[in-house]
């Protein structure tokens, strides 16, 4: 399969670009919800519009009423989200939770997917347990109790947890903290007794929670996939989240880069446009190259994932790490090249820097994934 978009994908990209550029624009969404101190950190109206365009069900199978598309298509939407810093629960709900629910029973899918398709529901994923992404170690416990399970533990960095109707929780039903086996995924409704969430606003104005699970009692039918066999579903969900976050990072990088090159062509100092200075030109050209490579790695990973390739896992980590590196460079160069104005809240470039920082941590940063590339390569 060639590494560029098909005609259908290019049409989707046009739609997403236009929609996000207008409805999802920084002034209309990110700044608006931030400045009104919105407790969700995003707008439900926009989420309904996502649903009307079919975006919320992009990875949901056609049998369940979704579009049944793949990670390439989800990535197209995410790149535009990244470019416009559009706050939305798309990545956690429509990419990650939807991927997990793809392995769930018909009952569970029937319970949760319709709300996603209409844009009435929001989902979150509760995997991390500390400040760094370490899904290999899961301490949260689920013990058998009566007909179901009792969950105890704590989760961190649960994006949109406070707005979510359901949280996909990874818990341990067997084995030791570091064991690969013995993981079970649960669909946990927001209002279940014993679930408490501390909301916290993050540097990029998004909302996350610290989750506590204190004897949360669930029926057996809340299990996604197999009891003790959840690692495989978890990995699928993580891969979806990682390649999705990579695509969003590429969008953040591209948005910051475009803003910066535009500025280089407008700002005058020493009687010249600053874009005439070779020191800035070379850095901009290097950055261009890094962003292009990150985009290529991301499309490759999306295609491999959609095709079920054995190399997908490696390439997903390559994409997340590379996109993270490129976006980090793009926002740092962006702020520096804007000079003083880049430090002001009024100017958008700083918002890109904040979004990049949050996105870098989400689903593993460049160090985590470079380490993973090394391990998967046998060293």
């Amino acid at each position, binding site marked *: 399969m060639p590494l*560029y978009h098909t005609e259908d994908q290019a049409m989707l990209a046009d739609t997403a670009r236009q929609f996000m550029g207008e409805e999802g624009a920084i002034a209309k969404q990110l700044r608006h919800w931030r400045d009104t101190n919105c407790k969700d950190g995003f707008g439900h109206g926009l989420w309904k519009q996502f649903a009307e365009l079919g975006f919320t069900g992009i990875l949901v199978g056609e049998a369940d009423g979704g579009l049944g598309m793949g990670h390439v298509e989800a990535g197209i939407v995410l790149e535009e989200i990244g470019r416009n810093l559009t706050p939305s629960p798309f990545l956690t709900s429509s990419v990650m939770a939807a991927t997990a629910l793809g392995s769930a029973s018909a009952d569970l899918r029937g319970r949760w997917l319709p709300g996603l398709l209409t844009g009435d529901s929001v989902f979150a994923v509760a995997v991390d347990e500390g400040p760094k992404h370490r899904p290999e170690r899961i301490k949260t416990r689920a013990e058998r109790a009566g007909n179901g399970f009792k969950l105890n533990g704590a989760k961190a960095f649960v994006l949109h947890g406070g707005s979510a109707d359901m949280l996909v929780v990874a818990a341990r039903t067997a084995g030791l903290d570091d064991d690969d086996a013995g993981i079970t995924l649960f669909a946990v409704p927001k209002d279940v007794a014993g679930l408490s969430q501390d909301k916290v606003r993050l540097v990029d104005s998004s909302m996350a929670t610290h989750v506590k699970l204190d004897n949360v009692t669930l029926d057996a039918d809340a299990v996604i996939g197999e009891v003790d066999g959840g690692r495989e579903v978890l990995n699928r969900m993580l891969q979806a989240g990682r390649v999705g976050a990579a695509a969003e990072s590429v969008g953040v990088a591209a948005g910051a880069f475009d803003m910066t090159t535009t500025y280089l062509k407008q700002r005058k100092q020493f009687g010249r446009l600053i874009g*005439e200075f070779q020191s800035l030109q070379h850095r901009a050209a290097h950055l261009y190259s890094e962003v292009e490579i990150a985009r290529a790695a991301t499309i490759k990973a999306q295609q491999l994932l959609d095709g079920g390739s054995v190399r997908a896992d*490696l390439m997903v980590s390559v994409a997340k790490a590379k996109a993270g590196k490129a976006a980090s460079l793009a926002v740092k160069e962006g702020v520096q090249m804007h000079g003083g104005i880049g430090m002001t809240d009024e100017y958008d470039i700083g918002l890109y820097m904040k979004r990049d920082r949050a996105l870098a941590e989400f689903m593993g940063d460049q160090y985590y994934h470079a380490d993973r590339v090394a391990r998967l390569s*046998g060293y």
Partner: protein
Amino acid sequence: MSDLDAFRAEIRAWLEENCPPEMREPAREEDDACWGGRNFKFKNEAQKQWLERCAAKGYTVPDWPKAYGGAGMNAAQAKVWREEMHRINARAPLSSFGIWMLGPALLKFGTEEQKVHYLGQIARGEIRWCQGYSEPGSGSDLVSLQTFGEDKGDHWVVNGQKIWTSYANKADWIFCLVRTDKGNKYQGISFLLFDMTTPGVSTKPILLISGSSPFCETFFDNVVVPKDQIVGELNCGWDVAKYLLGHEREMISGAGGNDRLNTIGAVLNRAGLEDPLLRADLAQFDVDALAFSAMGEKFLDEIKVGKAHPAQPNMMKYAGTELNKRRYELLMAGGGSASLEWESEASDGGARARTWLRTKANSIEGGTSEVMLNVISKRILDLPGA
């Protein structure tokens, strides 16, 4: 079965039948590559057979038209060809500046007679070409070149000197940038082809820090070049050169390279990797290298359908050569003192150290990294005054 599947089956069967087992081993030494030409000495019978069999089918240049010695494959078929070659680790039947550089320029700018004549020779590996671009005073600022062709009616008389002419001492013919109008900088250069055995042509190898001499100085002393040996219009050689440089940059970038799947960390790990900071650098490198291999694939896919930015080869050249230099820095560090050996048998005659030194030229030849960044700034980013 789709047409493409049928095509793949056909290619797979042909390769199974015709690619000698020796040609499915990775190339280890410089003379493992087959360069063809009048004076080429085949390393073994398998190398000769492999060239002849491929040439007979047009497979040395699978996507060139059949009339010019190719196999007439479309983009999808050519990709299948590369994948099937890669599947059995087959070596390229022919390494050739004619294929990589002159060929694409002739396909675009050559006359019908030139295409039939020269492209056929290239495809069959009969003539080995070298490139006469740089001069002692014209490196990055190539357009300042001074080698002059004086108009003598039905021919030019060429005088001057080229430098960094790769394998000029082994080449049969040269494609050469020659000034044909001293009053016009850009519009005063012509793209000429001539035989290296023409009286007045001489070459002198340049000893490099790697200890080898892939480059030469090339001297022209009243060299007679017939008028029909020009490619493109008179004084329009710069357009041909720019077009061709794109292909050269693509080649040096390694975009067409077929094996980047073995991560460098995995290679070094066989000898034991104990330093965590080195491991970290290797992991970062492997992320960049694997990402760049996806970029290479994307670039080739896009170029086949005209989706790539025309100046994108400059980006590929920049990123690919900088990456390759990093690769060899890490290989040297990973190898420790063993990689310092210059003449031992264990080190295969200092292969790693020599290659490490050779890679330093990657970001100089064919346009320096700094020139690449200038070109990206101007042609892709449209920055002012660039």
